[in-house]
């Protein structure tokens, strides 16, 4: 068997663009990273591999950028890679994580990394790539532990707890302690903070037969100041809403529920018609360009081939489409 490894390509990525985080298949180590230039409509796939001559790993979960460094969380490889967002070359890595999901920067020297199957949120120093501490989450065992996406308002970071959980946790970033928790529906999947300082989360409702409960999913608007639910929008039983996203000025909400849906954050009811109907597609990832408001939707197709990304204008016109990697599940704007 011949190995054609070892060759590293030199990239110079444009100053802005879109990273597509392709999960790959669980246990196959075939996660990849793609980079799309919205101006030229050019896409480069497998950029991590091509720039570093090594694999990204198993189940790439999320990515965020701070400065000119991108932090790619690779869940089942137990690693977070730091890459230069222009060359895509690795600049460092954080290891010894349990099952990392998302990363959030509190400062240049402190970040949180949420975990699945762990009742702790890891505190790391991104400068040294070292784990510096943990935040212990209440009423959670290692086996049922799940912390996910994070948003920050003031000195507080809010975290949704998803797998066999039903809570939003509130962390004081000065003390690294949980200072509050809010019960929502079964399994909140994602979290966003709108222009008016309100939190949004959507639950998936669990699944039929789950001993944790099975209910109609809901979209929640939460006031982080009082840490109470302001509004609850219910979906039909059996629906699977996910991926709450906001447009550039954070006044319009988008999510996946078979089709793609959107509504102003001030709306009182869920719209009757979707932004984009499903067309034998398996919409798996969603993002909105913070500058153009173009909507990018990932179709995983059959989950074992390169997924396709569709780019729509904010009024629903198809602008571009391209293939990325296996199971494109997350995006990150540069």
């Amino acid at each position, binding site marked *: *068997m011949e190995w054609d490894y070892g060759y590293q390509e030199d990239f110079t990525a444009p100053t802005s663009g879109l990273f597509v985080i392709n999960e790959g298949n669980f246990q196959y180590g075939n996660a990849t990273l793609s980079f799309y230039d919205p101006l030229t409509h050019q896409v480069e796939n497998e950029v991590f591999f091509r720039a*570093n001559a090594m694999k990204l790993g198993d189940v790439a979960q999320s990515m965020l950028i701070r400065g000119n460094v991108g932090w790619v969380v690779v869940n089942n490889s137990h690693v977070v890679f730091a890459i230069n967002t222009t060359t895509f070359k*690795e600049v460092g890595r954080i290891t010894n994580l349990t099952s990392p999901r998302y990363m959030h920067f509190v400062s240049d020297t402190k970040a949180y990394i949420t975990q699945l199957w762990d009742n702790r949120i890891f505190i790391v120093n991104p400068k040294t790539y070292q784990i510096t501490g943990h935040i212990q989450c209440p009423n959670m065992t290692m086996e049922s532990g799940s912390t996910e996406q994070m948003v920050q308002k003031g000195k507080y970071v809010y975290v949704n707890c998803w797998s066999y959980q039903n809570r939003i946790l509130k962390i004081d970033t000065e003390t690294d302690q949980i200072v509050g928790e809010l019960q929502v529906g079964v399994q909140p999947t994602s979290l966003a903070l709108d222009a008016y300082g309100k939190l949004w989360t959507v639950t998936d409702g669990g699944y039929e037969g789950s001993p944790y409960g099975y209910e109609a999913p809901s979209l929640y608007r939460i006031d982080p100041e009082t840490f109470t639910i302001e509004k609850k929008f219910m979906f039909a039983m059996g629906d699977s809403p996910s991926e709450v996203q906001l447009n550039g000025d954070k006044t319009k909400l988008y999510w996946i529920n078979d089709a793609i849906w959107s509504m102003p954050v001030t709306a009182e009811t869920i719209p009757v018609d979707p932004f984009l109907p499903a067309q034998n597609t398996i919409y798996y990832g969603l993002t909105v360009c913070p500058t153009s408001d173009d909507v990018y939707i990932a179709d995983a197709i*059959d989950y074992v081939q390169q997924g396709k990304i569709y780019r729509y204008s904010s009024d629903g016109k198809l602008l571009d489409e391209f293939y990325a990697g296996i199971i494109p599940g997350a995006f990150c704007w540069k």
Partner: protein
Amino acid sequence: MSKKIGIVCLLFALFAGAMAQENATKGKLGRGVALHDVIIYGKRPLKEIGTQKTAFDSTQLKENISLSMADVLTYNSSIFVKNYGRATLSTVSFRGTSPSHTQVTWNGMRINNPMLGMTDFSMIPSYFIDDASLLHGTSSVNETGGGLGGLVRMTTKPANADGFGLQYIQGVGSFNSFDEFLRLTYGNRHWQVSTRAVLSTSPNNYTYRNHDKKENIYDENMNIIDQYYPIEENKSGAYQDFHFLQEAYYNTGTGHRLGLNAWYIQSKRELPLLTTDYADNTAFENVQREQTFRGVLSWDFLRSQYKVAAKAGYIYTYMAYDYKRDVGNGIMANMTESRSKVNTAYAQAEGEYYWGKERLFSANLAFYQHFVETKDKNIIKIEGGNAIVGYKKARPELTGSLSVKWQPIDRLGMSVVVREEMYGSEWSPIIPAFFIDGVLWERINLMAKASVSRNYRFPTLNDMYFLPGGNPNLKKENGWTYDAGLSFAVGRENLYTLSGSATWFDSYINDWIIWLPTTKGFFSPRNIKDVHAYGVELKANASFCLAKNWTLTLDGSFSWTPSINNGDPLSPADQSVGKQLPYVPEYSANVTGRISYKTFSFLYKWCYYSERYTMSSNDITLTGKLPTYFMSNIAIEKNLLFSFADFSIKFNINNLFNEEYLSVLSRPMPGINFQLFLGITPKWR
């Protein structure tokens, strides 16, 4: 009237375990070479009319005590063995189908795991199997339903011992691997009793160059100043497998035969880390433990015109999977604690009746009752207290068949099989199969065979009930399979034998069940693909007597197995239609050569798999490559014969050319490695 061509050739010099095994039962070891009859019948057994069968002889099965059936099938058959690493899950699939389309029987009892549908062949030591054969495609309907790809049939046999016998073999290999085999036998005119035990242990920490990751070297400011591909150990790969097999057979001498087979397995295996895993393996524990008992009681009554038989059996399997990590204080905390128990009761009755010498009627009815309990996760409920995520289900399964086999003239045979199956409360439609064969040219025993069948496979219990994701609304997979082929066999006494076959097959499988991720974050099975699997299988065997005491045998097979997704595109973006299924090699081949001189023998084994796709679209990417690989093993053996005992010494080299290869993405395989086996067979008289 059978026409026996009767070719007798000096064949097969003694081979490590094989002959030692054989002679342990006879109480003595023959000097030099064994006589092996190759008998070719102009009139073949009625039972095998039209069947496509690959049989394994004891030389192949007993070649090495450390081999699993997965290893035997890799080097001696055309079916695809998907190997997740040394001493880890190994599944087999026929003709481009999936592992759950392969039915597996042991002493007549189906042993596919009712939760998963498939069988782990790495957990079946070849030394515990005395007779094995593959029934390809349509031919599996003769034995059971659901074998959309085929059936692997394994049996044990009476030891044919006269008095007490003992055999002990010790194996020592690379990576601190130790294999021990003990067999005790006793036999007389009525009784044959055998006890076998195998213990295999290894830390399995072979090293390999990891091409999938790099190690960083940092300066004092945490800037990367260099990187390199590390030489890594196979982390978390240790195993300890113990097998115990007790057999007793009683032959009344009046046509009645009673048998007992009881097989116990205790296994503890760590699950190796992927090549892309950056975890500190000392901080994690990833272990699978299994205890399995399989027992079969059998009764046969034989008369010249008919046979009746009954079997009763029981299977118990306990599987535990623990995934733990050190939370920093040395205490390993559970991340996953999964448990499953399967209890299966089995009963079977069958009868055969020969109406003259040209007709055979047979009937078979088998019943299985499964009780399954799984516990996959311990959670805290919303209202407080704990709950287990899992399921508990029972399912009866019934499979019965009627068949008529007819040979109106010596050169022509036909067979019809009608089978019916029930899983739970659901019945399959009638499963029909038709076989025909004929001798075209007696001189070279040129024979043509053809068959056709319809078959169904019911969803497994996990497919239907696993939490989360089980889908009780799944439909049965179903398909048509067509086979046609030619075979020949020629030879000359004391000079050579030559045989070969070519088979074309064509299968259409609809409503193929695959597990796909859902937007809720878990996997769920769905009936998705319609698959067209077709191709050609070629087999050849040659044996030569080169000179006095010198023999040479060559076995080989080649398969061409396109397995094409024929379904409708899932969306306009779907690029998988018309493409080869992932992980199914289009071409595969193997060759085994053996040369022997008196008590010395040399074996060379070679196998080849073409590139396998990892994507349904057949795109080949940098991260999704499973290139072609060739594998070569050699073995040298010498037997030493004394008046008080026989000794055997054998040396194996596996992966002779130290090939870096993968069978599955991110699962490293060992490089060149060595094994030494010493065997002793005392002579009591």
